[in-house]
Each structure stands twice: as structure tokens, then as C-alpha cells.
């Protein structure tokens, strides 16, 4: 079932959590709502579920306007960051809850309930925990039970609020893959909220990137990563190096040096900022001609197949007031040819960087 929101606005006192958000979520997709904390992603999810009311705007579930519907009529499955399992019930009773509270005419028989709960516990591979209490489970197990509980009532959509946020890194990675596989079995329209860009890129079909109550960019995970639409989108999705300067044709002028850039919609001579990911930077010999700016190697970190190099620029760039720091990544096998030592002077360059209009901070 598709989900859509239209012009959703929500304020908490003077704070605007959502500022006229409109989005369409295609049926059967697994979508990530990604953004820094306080960007309004959880509020949007709760408004879709009906746990929060929008000041204005509409929520559409399928082709029905659900804006005025009560939570229990929306048939959404909701998974909470801190699981929200019923602590006084066994795992079995937690999963059975949604079936037991159905109105008498719609309530399945005891045998049907037992069958359905057993099937669900099988689906999340935790059948052997049926008679335990939530406090006796690990975090990862609890979240899987919470998911089984949400699925018990056959929801039309599944909403997950930072589902892996309270888990440690190892379990989180494991559950990501597991959620991915589960989704490809169920094909239930699912939205999950996260502030972790790796998690979003790893799990989601599509990413909705949010910032300060607005949508920054929507697109397939790879597209958002490779062609970010805004400076925020680019810097949120991974580490970046910043080059503030002025546009001169196809070049970004940087206090005497220059880099080749692609600048759309920025006029000649205007201030711009170019962003480069660490692996996009090239480290050249200080005597090499052409583009690039002078820098000095501060630190070389080698762990794993990629070496990380920290550098300090030797020119003060536009409006920064101090020498900039950069971070470059070089495959380990190419490190030998560069002969990098701490204190060595080099030239730092990059191919066709994306330039965005400069916004003073």
C-alpha cells in the first residue's frame, strides 16, 4: 500500500519540527527517513502512524485520507526504538496481543491465535523464546519480537522508529541484513527512521533526506550518495573536504590556486563551495603543474586496505580565517609510490568537484 503526506506542518511551541513536508512512498518499498537529530523525521513517522497530530496537512494511506483516523483504525505496524514490549507479558502474549484485543466478531479462535503467533515467532527465528519475559531477552531479540508483534495484526504498512538505534554495532549490522531479507519476503511498504547514513545506504531502496523540518532530497540510495542535490546532502552522507572559493568559468579559484569544478546555477565570480569525499582527493608531487593546492602531511593512518591521510592546507581559504584541514584516502598499494612522510609538502587535487552556492555559516 502506498503512503503519501501532503503539506504536513507541525510545531512544538516556537520550534518548527516539520515545515510543509510533502512526500510519496511507493508501495512495497523499504524507505529510509534519514537526517540529523531534530530534523523532524521521527515526528513525521509518528504523524503517519497517528501517534502525533499534524497542525496542518494530510496523510494518505493507499487512496484513503487517514488524517482524521484514530491510530487503531490506521492498521499500521509500529516498531519503537526502545522496543516498548509489554514487560509483564511473555513473548508469546506480546505477539498475541494485537489478535486478542480485536472485537469479538473479528477475533480469531485460540487455536488460530496460537498458530499465527507460532508462525510469526518462526519468521523472526525466535520460537524457542515464546515463554520468556522481555527482560530476559537481549536487545536484538527484543526488537525482533517487537517486529513480530507489529506484524501479527497484518498491518498495511510498517513504520520503524530508529529500530536499531539502541543496539550495539555488531547486532545492528546483523539485524540490518535480516530486515532487508525479511522485507524482500513480505513486500510490505516500510518506512524506517535513522540518523545513520551507512544504515540508510545499506538497507533502504530509497532515501528521504531531511534537514530542519524540510525534505532535502529524495532518491535511490546510490543516487543520493553519488549526486547529492545540496551541500547538506553531500556532507551528511559521508565525510567531505570543503573548498570555499569563487567561480571562474569551469574553475574554482582558491586564494591563488584553483580546482576544476562543475557549477550549476552559480554565476561567474560568485562565491561557491566545492565538496570532495576523501577518496576523491589526489595527492600529487609539490612540483607538479596544473590544478591543486599546497598542503602538508600531518598524519598517515594505515589500518586495513585503505590508508587515511590527514593534511593541513598552506593557504587560508575564503572566509575561514585559519588553515584548512583535509582528509584523503588512498588505496594501500598506491601508498608506496607516493612516499608520504609527516611534514612532506604535497599538492592536493581533485577531478570535477561538485560546487554549491556558498552559504555563510
Amino acid at each position, binding site marked *: 500500500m502506498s503512503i503519501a503526506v501532503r503539506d504536513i506542518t507541525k510545531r512544538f511551541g516556537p520550534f518548527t519540527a516539520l515545515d510543509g513536508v510533502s512526500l510519496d512512498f511507493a508501495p512495497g518499498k523499504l524507505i529510509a527517513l534519514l537526517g540529523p537529530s531534530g530534523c523532524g523525521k521521527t515526528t513525521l513517522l509518528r504523524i503517519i*502512524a*497517528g*501517534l502525533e497530530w499534524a497542525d496542518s496537512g494530510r496523510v494518505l494511506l493507499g487512496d484513503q485520507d487517514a488524517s482524521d483516523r484514530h*491510530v*487503531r483504525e490506521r*492498521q*499500521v*505496524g*509500529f516498531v*519503537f526504538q*526502545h522496543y*516498548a*514490549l*509489554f*514487560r*509483564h*507479558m511473555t513473548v508469546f502474549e506480546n505477539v498475541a*496481543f*494485537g489478535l*486478542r*484485543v*480485536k472485537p469479538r466478531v473479528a477475533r480469531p479462535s485460540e487455536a488460530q491465535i496460537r498458530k499465527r503467533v507460532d508462525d510469526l515467532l518462526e519468521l523472526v527465528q525466535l520460537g524457542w523464546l515464546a515463554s520468556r*519475559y*522481555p*527482560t*530476559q531477552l537481549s536487545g536484538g531479540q527484543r526488537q525482533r519480537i*517487537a517486529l513480530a*508483534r*507489529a506484524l*501479527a*495484526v497484518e498491518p498495511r504498512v510498517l513504520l520503524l522508529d530508529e529500530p536499531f538505534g539502541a543496539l550495539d554495532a555488531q547486532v545492528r549490522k546483523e539485524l540490518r541484513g535480516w530486515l532487508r531479507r525479511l522485507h524482500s519476503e513480505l513486500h510490505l511498504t516500510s518506512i524506517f527512521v535513522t540518523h545513520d547514513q551507512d544504515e540508510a545506504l545499506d538497507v533502504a531502496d530509497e532515501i528521504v533526506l531531511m534537514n530542519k523540518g524540510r525534505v532535502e532530497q529524495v532518491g535511490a540510495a546510490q543516487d543520493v550518495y553519488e549526486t547529492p542535490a545540496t551541500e547538506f546532502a553531500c556532507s551528511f552522507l559521508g565525510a567531505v573536504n570543503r573548498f570555499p572559493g569563487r567561480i571562474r568559468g569551469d574553475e574554482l579559484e582558491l586564494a591563488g590556486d584553483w580546482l576544476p569544478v562543475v557549477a550549476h546555477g552559480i554565476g561567474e565570480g560568485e562565491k561557491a563551495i566545492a565538496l570532495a569525499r576523501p577518496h576523491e582527493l589526489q595527492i600529487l608531487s609539490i612540483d607538479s603543474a596544473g590544478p591543486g593546492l599546497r598542503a602538508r602531511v600531518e598524519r598517515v593512518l594505515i589500518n586495513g586496505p585503505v590508508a587515511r591521510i590527514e593534511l593541513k592546507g598552506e593557504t587560508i581559504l575564503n572566509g575561514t580565517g585559519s588553515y584548512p584541514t583535509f582528509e584523503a584516502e588512498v588505496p594501500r598499494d598506491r601508498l608506496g609510490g607516493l612516499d608520504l612522510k609527516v611534514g612532506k609538502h604535497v599538492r592536493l587535487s581533485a577531478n570535477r568537484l561538485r560546487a554549491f552556492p556558498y552559504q555563510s555559516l
Partner: protein
Amino acid sequence: MAGASGTLDLRGRSASARFEENPATRDNPWARRIILATSLAFFALFLVMPLAAVFVEALRRGLSVYVAALTEPDALSAIKLTLIVAAVSVPMNLVFGIAAAWAITKFDFKGKQFLITLIDLPFSVSPVIAGLVFVLVFGAQGWFGPWLRENDIKVIFAVPGIVLATVFVTFPFVARELIPLMQAQGTEEEEAALTLGATGWQMFRRVTLPNIKWALLYGVILCNARAMGEFGAVSVVSGHIRGLTNTMPLHVEILYNEYQFAAAFAVASLLALLALLTLALKSYIEWRTAQQGTVGDTP
């Protein structure tokens, strides 16, 4: 989750045992003995002795006098009235306590802090003043006095006044037990119940109530103990009419003033027994709550 049952280290010893066994942190044995002796002496002098005195004095003139003092009509009517007052005021405060705790912990509204402060008012106001307030409002010369007289309703110097005063005094017990617990538990489980299709009542019955039941019972027991033992506020509104508006604590006072010491202590011993029973129940509930905190509830 340890928490309620005290902090345990890896080998399951309590923090105090660890502290005691460790030569680096252990106190001088004399300091330990002096602290123990002082607290035990204090305990014996101010808690155990008065309690024992009640029972000794009650039985000083023999068991037959004791039984007679409890079965004479005025005593029986005082016991009956005390039970009635508790039976009315405790359920009222149970409902109010849940409602207030629910409102404070699950909703956001203006004046919440004020309501929390207001709930504590009966603890900070002298019970005598609480009684006087009711006399001023419902008494013959009070605000509603003339209207009540015209409609032939008696509040002051009658059972309704005693119930009102008791409800006022025991007002905070249930709410104060529930508010911190419900604040700590948050609203997520309730929200989960709603998304699973539960109605408001089902959510309360199946999720909220089981989560708060032990704290609720604890509050009710304390509330009941105070309702039966309240003296000040009830004394002001009751009028001390023997056989009609005397509760057990008031009856004790009257008997004592009439130099019927054995009878006075006999009735007092009933109240003391109630107190002991309350303590036993309270300890049991605390133990249950701790159990629940460590390994979950067993149905």
C-alpha cells in the same frame, strides 16, 4: 536489571557486604558497635516500647475486660464507622489517584506542575485546619450551611463530613505512589497497544494496570492505614457523638479522658494490629516489586 533489589556485584554479593569484607574500607569495629547500639537503643525506646505498652496495658486487667471493651455497643459502632469511612474514602482515592497520575504522566497541559504541588497539599496542611475548612464550608454558619439545612442534608457532625475529611487527608497516597513509576515507564507501551488496535479501556486494563498494580496496591494500603487512623481532621468535623460519629481513634481518646485506660488501650491495640498488618503487607509488596524488577513477573 538489578535496581530495586540493591546492587549486586559479579559474585552476587551486595554492595554493603563487599564494603564490610574489604579490609581497605572496613570501619573500626568499635565505631561499628557504637553505631549499631545507638540505632538499636533508639529503635527500642521509641518504636518497640510504645507498641508493647499498648498491648500490655490493654491486657492488664485480663482478657475478659479486653473482650468486653471491644464488644460494648459504642466500641462496635466506632469500629463499624471506621470501616465504613475507609470503605468509602479508599476507593474514591484509588480512582482519583489513578486519574491524577494518568493525567500528569501521559498528557501535557498547562498548570501540570501546579497540580503536582496541589496533590501534596494535604501533607503540608495540618489536619485540624483541613477539618476546620470543611466546617466553614458545610457547617451551619458555612457557605452551604443554609442550603444544606433547607434540604435536610447533614454533613458536619455526621458521617459525610467524616468521609470528606478523611478523603482530603488521604488524598495524596495513591497518586504519589503512581506518579514516579508511571513517569519512569513512559507512554511507549500504551502507544504500542494503540497501534495494535487496542481500545482505550483495553490499553488500560491489559497494559497500564498490570504495570502499576504493585505500586497501586502499596498506595492503597498506606491510604487505608491513614484513613482508619486519622484523628485531627475527623475530630473537628465529627462532633464526638457516641455511637454515631465516633471513629476508633476518637473513641480511644474519649475512653482515655474518662480514665477507662484498659478499654482505651484495648481499642488502641486494634489500631496497632492494623498497623502491623499494614507493615507486613507493605513488606510483601516491596518484595514482590523487587522480584518483578529482576526477573519479570510470574503470572
